C-alpha cells in the first residue's frame, strides 16, 4: 500500500479578517505549496461548508488550481459540515493511495464574520436533518450539545465548572498561538458568568464564528512526517433516535478504525487535536477516543491531564474554542498544529518531542467523524 507523507503546511490568521474567502484560501494554499518546496501538484481538494449559502461562492477547487497556476488538474470541493476539512484531507490521501496522484494540495476555508449570527446559525442548522420534527421544535446545533451536557451532569459528578476548565485550558493555549482568534487571557469566573448561549453552555463553551483558511501538501514521496492512518465514518443524524445520548458513536468508531489501521492504541498517542466545537464535545471525544474511561473525561479535566504539561495534551493550538472555527478550515488547522508539534516548532511545543499525533474532526451533531494519525519518521 502506498504511504502518504506531509510536505508542506500553510495557515492564515484566524479571526475577523478583511480578506475574502478566495484571498484566505489562496494565502493558505500558497504558503503550503512554498513550504513543500513548490512541487508539481496533481490534484486539489478543498473543504468548505457555507461558501455557497453565505458568500455566494462555489467552484473553490478550480479557483485554487487556476489562481495558483497548477494547470489543467482535477479539483474538488468537499462538504461534510464541520468535518469538511478532515474529509477533504482524507480524499487527498485516498487519491495518493490509489496511485492516481503523486502529490495533492488539500485546503479548507470559511468566511463567516461578515454575516449576522442568526443567518450563520440558520446556515449551520443545515448540518442537521432539517426534515424532522426536532428541527421544527427549534433544536439548534449548539442546543444538541446543551441537551447532552445537562444529561452528562445528571449521570456524572460533572458540573459547569468542568466545562469552564476545558474552555480556560484552550484559551490559555490559544493565547500562545499567534494565529489563534482570541489573544486575551480569561478566568474561570469570567467564563462561568458569561452570557448563556444554550443552557448550560455559555459564550466561552461555544466555538466562535471565524474567518480563516489552512492547507496541506501531501505526497507519496517521503518526508519526515507520515500519515499513519486515515479513517472516516457516518453516524446518527437525529437526537431523538440516539441509542445513547452520552455517546457520539461516529467519534468512537472512527477512532477505533484509525487505531486498528495504525496498529496502535490511545495510550501511544503523544499529542491530540480534538474537535471541541463545544467544551462538552471535547470531554465526550476524549472518552470516545479511549484516552479516558466513559463518563470520566471530566475527571481528567479536573486533574489537568489534558493541559500542555499533562500526560495527554489536547488542543495545544487552542482548539476550536480559542484558535477559532472557520468551519471548512478546521480539519486542516488541526493537521497544521500537529505537524508543527512533530516538527518541534509549534505554539505550546511539547517538551517531550512528540512522535505520534492524532486529529479528530467532527461534522454535524455526530453525522461525520474523521481521525488521522500522524507519525514523525
Amino acid at each position, binding site marked *: 500500500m502506498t504511504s502518504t507523507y506531509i510536505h508542506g503546511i500553510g495557515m492564515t490568521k484566524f479571526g475577523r479578517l478583511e480578506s475574502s474567502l478566495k484571498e484566505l484560501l489562496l494565502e493558505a494554499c500558497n504558503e503550503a505549496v512554498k513550504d513543500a518546496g513548490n512541487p508539481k501538484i496533481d490534484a486539489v481538494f478543498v473543504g468548505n461548508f457555507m461558501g455557497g449559502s453565505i458568500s455566494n461562492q462555489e467552484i473553490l477547487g478550480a479557483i485554487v488550481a487556476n489562481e495558483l497556476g497548477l494547470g489543467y488538474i482535477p479539483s474538488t470541493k468537499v462538504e461534510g459540515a464541520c468535518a469538511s476539512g478532515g474529509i477533504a484531507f482524507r480524499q487527498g490521501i485516498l487519491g495518493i493511495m490509489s496511485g492516481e496522484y503523486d502529490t495533492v494540495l488539500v485546503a479548507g476555508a470559511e468566511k463567516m464574520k461578515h454575516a449576522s*449570527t*442568526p*443567518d450563520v*446559525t*440558520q446556515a449551520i*442548522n443545515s448540518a442537521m436533518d432539517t426534515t*424532522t*420534527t*426536532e428541527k*421544527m*421544535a*427549534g*433544536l*439548534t446545533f*449548539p*442546543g444538541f450539545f*446543551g*441537551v*447532552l*451536557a*445537562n*444529561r452528562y451532569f*445528571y449521570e456524572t459528578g460533572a458540573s459547569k465548572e468542568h466545562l469552564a476548565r476545558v474552555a480556560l485550558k484552550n484559551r490559555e493555549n490559544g493565547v500562545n498561538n499567534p494565529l489563534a482568534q482570541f489573544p486575551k487571557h480569561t478566568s474561570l469566573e469570567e467564563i462561568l458568568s458569561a*452570557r*448563556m*448561549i*444554550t*443552557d*448550560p*453552555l455559555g459564550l466561552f463553551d461555544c466555538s466562535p464564528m471565524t474567518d480563516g483558511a489552512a492547507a496541506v501538501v501531501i505526497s507519496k514521496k517521503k518526508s519526515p512526517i507520515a500519515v499513519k492512518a486515515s479513517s472516516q465514518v457516518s453516524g446518527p443524524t*437525529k*437526537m*431523538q*433516535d*440516539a441509542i445513547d*445520548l452520552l455517546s457520539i458513536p461516529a467519534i468512537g468508531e472512527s477512532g477505533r478504525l484509525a487505531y486498528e489501521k495504525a496498529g496502535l492504541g490511545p495510550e501511544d498517542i503523544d499529542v491530540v487535536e480534538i474537535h471541541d466545537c463545544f467544551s462538552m464535545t471535547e470531554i465526550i471525544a476524549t472518552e470516545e477516543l479511549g484516552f479516558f474511561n466513559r463518563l470520566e473525561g471530566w475527571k481528567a479535566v479536573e486533574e489537568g491531564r489534558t493541559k500542555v504539561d499533562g500526560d495527554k495534551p489536547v488542543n495545544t493550538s487552542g482548539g476550536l474554542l480559542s484558535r477559532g472555527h472557520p468551519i471548512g478550515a478546521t480539519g486542516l488547522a488541526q493537521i497544521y498544529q500537529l505537524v508543527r508539534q512533530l516538527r518541534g516548532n509549534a505554539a505550546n511545543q511539547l517538551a517531550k518531542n512528540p512522535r505520534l499525533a492524532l486529529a479528530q474532526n467532527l461534522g454535524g451533531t455526530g453525522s461525520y467523524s474523521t481521525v488521522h494519525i500522524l507519525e514523525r519518521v
Partner: protein
Amino acid sequence: MKIYSCCEKDSISKRFYCPECRSSEFAEKEVSDDGTVYSYTKIHIAPAEFADIAPYNVVLVDLDEANAKVTTRMEEDVEIGDKVTFDRLEKGAYIYKKVPERVQLH
C-alpha cells in the same frame, strides 16, 4: 403519539427503510403522549426562523409507553425526571407541557 416499529426498534419518526431488514412497512401503534424529561436545554441564541420566540426550552422526552424519545419544545422550565405530556402540534413541532403535581400523585 404514534410509534413506528420494526426489528424491535421503536421510533416516533417513520424512517424510509428499516435499517435492519430494509422493509418500508412499519408496525404502527398508538401510545400515551406522557413521558419523562430525559434532558433539556434553554436556547437563548436561536436561528433566524426562531429568533422571535427565544429563549425557549427544547426538551428530550422519554416516552413512558415506548422505547423511544421525542424532541419537544416547552414554555415551562423543567428538570430531568419531570413528568410531561403533549400539549399541541405547532408548525410541525411537538409542544409539551408539565403534568400538574397533583395529577402525578395518582
